């Protein structure tokens, strides 16, 4: 048995996870696909209004390394491409492709592949990109881009350390699809040519553990259970727990030869390569005290949340808040008309008595609890102070951008200070400032170029005029000479 390391801080969590088996979602009348991917990257629609699409058909293509193609999750017609409120902390509307389903669920024919080792890693990566696969743990980073690292990877880590309270979609997927996950892990390992592969499972998921043990039929994959300490599922934290290697703040795991992939992603890779299926569905945990029957639902991506809620018996009366993602890192939603995305792992309906910690804020008593739990070893209290007083340089000096927004500091703060909220605000301020600087530099250069060009043009005009004058003079002189000679 491998000896496990610990990362700094973190919170031991009391799991409140539903263990019901996965059910299939029924077909919603409408599927909604936001074009916005990560931060500022949009996918490009490649379907026309009124066009009929099939399940698995690509409806938007990726135009950068940070976006992935989108596929229809059922057959129907493209009803509109219009702004709808999307799953984003801003709760703003943005362009979406809306598909009206026709109930037939007709699919494109898939081309299965029986031996992936016959193909080059490059080919497999392209297939993964074409299948629209992104990290299903919540970050939604395009998997093919992550796999095209220049670095030598020695260890692939399949992350099944869910660790957020409430979320159980990964555990339920493992219980049903352990073999597919192991296949997916092997494909990923083949693509990366990684020597080792570790599947990390949380220790309070014994059934998932058992299922994987049975499915693993090779020596190249190691199964390790990790303690249920939040946020063990964070990439750098998980690497530290499994291998004892601490990845420095400014480095990526790949620079140290590690790469992490979520279990759901591994399964999607298996589906894409072996079965030839694009990513059109995922498992979503629908839970919280505000839901009548909490469960894990295999959901078509693009399904409106209210459809899933209805399938889970509807709301309880006392429901107060709807959250996408877990209770620690999720975002509050303003409406249940919003559709689930590839990144949605959980829909949480909170009741009022579930929202402890929302009491009035008090001044910081400098207890240092926040720093003690921070898994990245930051000083939240300092960062908060610098952020609030607008000392952006200091925030950067104190590694604000290493903060993973895990929320541990918020939970322990006895003064109920909204620390994470402030960190998000400050990060936004710094990013805006940098963007403005780029923009004004651009304007400055363009203005200078214009001035130089105009000065040059003026000089050229002058030169031309002078030349003309000279020529005219010459002609005059010539004609004069002619006249004289006559």
């Amino acid at each position, binding site marked *: 048995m491998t000896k496990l390391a610990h990362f700094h801080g973190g919170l031991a969590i009391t799991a409140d996870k539903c263990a019901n088996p996965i059910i299939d979602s029924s077909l919603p009348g409408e599927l909604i696909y936001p074009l916005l991917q990560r931060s500022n990257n949009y996918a490009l629609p490649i379907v026309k209004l009124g066009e009929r699409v099939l399940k698995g058909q690509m409806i938007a293509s990726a135009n950068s390394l940070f976006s992935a193609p989108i596929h229809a999750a059922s057959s129907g017609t493209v009803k509109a491409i219009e702004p709808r409120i999307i799953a984003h902390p801003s709760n*703003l509307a943005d362009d979406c492709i809306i598909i009206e389903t026709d109930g037939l669920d007709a699919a494109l024919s898939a081309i299965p592949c029986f031996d992936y080792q016959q193909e080059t890693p490059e080919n497999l990566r392209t297939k993964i990109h074409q299948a629209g696969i992104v990290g299903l743990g919540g970050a939604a980073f395009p998997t093919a881009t992550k796999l095209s690292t220049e670095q030598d990877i020695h260890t692939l880590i399949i992350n099944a350390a869910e660790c957020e309270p409430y979320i159980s979609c990964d555990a339920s997927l493992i219980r049903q699809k352990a073999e597919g996950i192991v296949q997916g892990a092997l494909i990923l390992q083949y693509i990366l040519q990684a020597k080792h592969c570790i599947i990390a499972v949380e220790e309070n998921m014994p059934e998932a553990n058992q299922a994987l043990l049975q499915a693993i039929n090779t020596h190249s994959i190691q199964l390790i259970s990790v303690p249920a300490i939040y946020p063990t599922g964070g990439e750098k934290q998980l690497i530290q727990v499994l291998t004892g290697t601490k990845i420095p703040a400014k480095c990526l795991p790949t620079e140290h030869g590690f790469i992490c992939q979520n279990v759901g992603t591994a399964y999607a890779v298996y589906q894409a390569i072996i079965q030839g299926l694009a990513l059109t569905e995922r498992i979503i945990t629908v839970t919280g005290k505000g839901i009548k029957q909490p469960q894990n639902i295999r959901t078509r991506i693009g399904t409106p949340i209210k459809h899933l809620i209805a399938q889970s018996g509807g709301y309880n009366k006392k429901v107060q808040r709807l959250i996408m993602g877990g209770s620690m890192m999720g975002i509050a939603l303003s409406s249940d008309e919003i559709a689930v995305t590839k990144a949605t792992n959980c829909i949480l309906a909170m009741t009022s008595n579930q929202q402890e910690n929302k009491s009035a804020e008090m001044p910081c008593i400098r207890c240092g609890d926040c720093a003690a739990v921070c898994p990245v070893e930051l000083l939240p209290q300092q960062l908060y102070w610098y952020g609030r007083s607008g000392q952006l340089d200091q925030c950067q000096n104190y590694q604000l951008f290493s903060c993973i927004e895990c929320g541990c500091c918020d939970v322990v703060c006895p003064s109920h200070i909204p620390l994470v909220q402030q960190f998000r605000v400050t990060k936004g301020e710094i990013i805006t400032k940098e963007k403005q600087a780029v923009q004004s530099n651009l*304007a*400055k250069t363009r*203005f200078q170029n214009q001035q130089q060009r105009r000065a040059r043009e003026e000089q050229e005009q002058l030169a031309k005029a002078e030349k003309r004058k000279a020529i005219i003079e010459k002609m005059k002189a010539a004609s004069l000479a002619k006249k004289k000679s006559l």
Partner: protein
Amino acid sequence: MLLLCLIFVMLGLILGFAAQYLKVQGDPIVEQIDALLPQTQCGQCQFPGCKPYAQAIAQGEADINQCPPGGEQTINALASLLGMESKPLNTEFGTIKTPAIAFIIEQDCIGCVKCIPPCPVDAILGATKQMHTVITSECTGCELCIAPCPVNCIIMLPRENKPSEWQWPAAHD
């Protein structure tokens, strides 16, 4: 041939002079002030661009509160650079507006090209008798193209409120 040679010699001379001229301008304090200005190049400060305003400030010929696009932030930054007291914007030069960009109502445009010369950053694209358009990413929102348009087909639109541009609001205030 001679003509070409002459033009090239001239060009060389002009470039030489320009380089010289710009070098003389490369006064570090002017550069520092210029770096704090928003580079909208709108001329509201009554100088033909941000750099000339920066020069005027450096020579003590202009106050630090004459740039409406920069607003309070720019004034504060200038004050701390020059070791002066901050002060409110002098509204004689204009008022603070929400950032906007120019938009040409294309079906109304008659292709008169009158909007092209005023634009300080060459953000308008078009040719005689052709429809014109604004390159959104380059436009600084200086509004200098609005007045020259004979058919009033250029309007200012606030920058789009897209999720990708959105920032977390503060928990307080």
